[in-house]
């Protein structure tokens, strides 16, 4: 199953310029999602990070991973996701292994460790081509409205 940006926006509360996934290319039940972020040359964050040496900030890779985890949560708990609850990140353990540059296609594979109504844990792996550029364990909460 694939999701375009409009479908992603129906689940995520994030909007440009803080929406960091462009498409979902794979969803495996409530266990795994694979998201893609096309890292454009004109991303606003490259203006300052860094002038003449553009590198995608690690925190934004983490944010993209967290956004993919929301899609994963929505696959596991569609009825709650439909109510548009508040999602918040509680704890992150991450490693950044290689820089991400303008023009890269960031592929983020996020798998469920445990998801319950009001919280979730997911492992996420970000790749550019065959190279793993970051990995993280994310613990997030859901506050129903």
């Amino acid at each position, binding site marked *: 199953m694939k999701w375009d940006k409009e479908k992603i926006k129906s689940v995520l509360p994030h909007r440009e310029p803080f929406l960091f996934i462009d498409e979902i290319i794979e969803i495996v039940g409530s266990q795994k999602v694979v998201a893609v972020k096309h890292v454009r040359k004109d991303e606003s964050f490259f203006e300052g990070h860094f002038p003449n040496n553009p590198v995608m900030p690690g925190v934004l890779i983490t944010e993209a991973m967290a956004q993919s985890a929301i899609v994963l949560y929505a696959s596991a708990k569609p009825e709650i996701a439909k109510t548009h609850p508040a999602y918040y990140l509680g704890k992150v353990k991450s490693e950044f292994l290689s820089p991400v540059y303008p023009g890269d296609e960031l592929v983020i594979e996020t798998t469920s460790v445990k998801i*319950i109504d*009001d*919280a979730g844990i997911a492992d996420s792996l970000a790749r550019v081509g065959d190279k793993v550029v970051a990995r993280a364990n994310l613990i997030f*909460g859901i506050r129903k409205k």
Partner: protein
Amino acid sequence: MSINYEEEVRNLVSDIIEVSPEKLTLDADFIDDLSVDSLKAIEIVAAFEKKYKIVIPEEDIPKIRSLGKIIEYTRPLQKD
């Protein structure tokens, strides 16, 4: 095995909720006495599932709100 298991569980939980093992009594309620929120709760559940290779269904989580209850709940699930 029983004393060791209790100590093992106490250490596992105390690491996650950042409460010293001495303060983590069998009866202390995670939510009311130890301020465990849903994020810490799922961390505890996931740590048990990983360490002991068990699955704790979501509907059972509210039943295990103290160290004593966790031990009572998980001990029969041990595969040893």
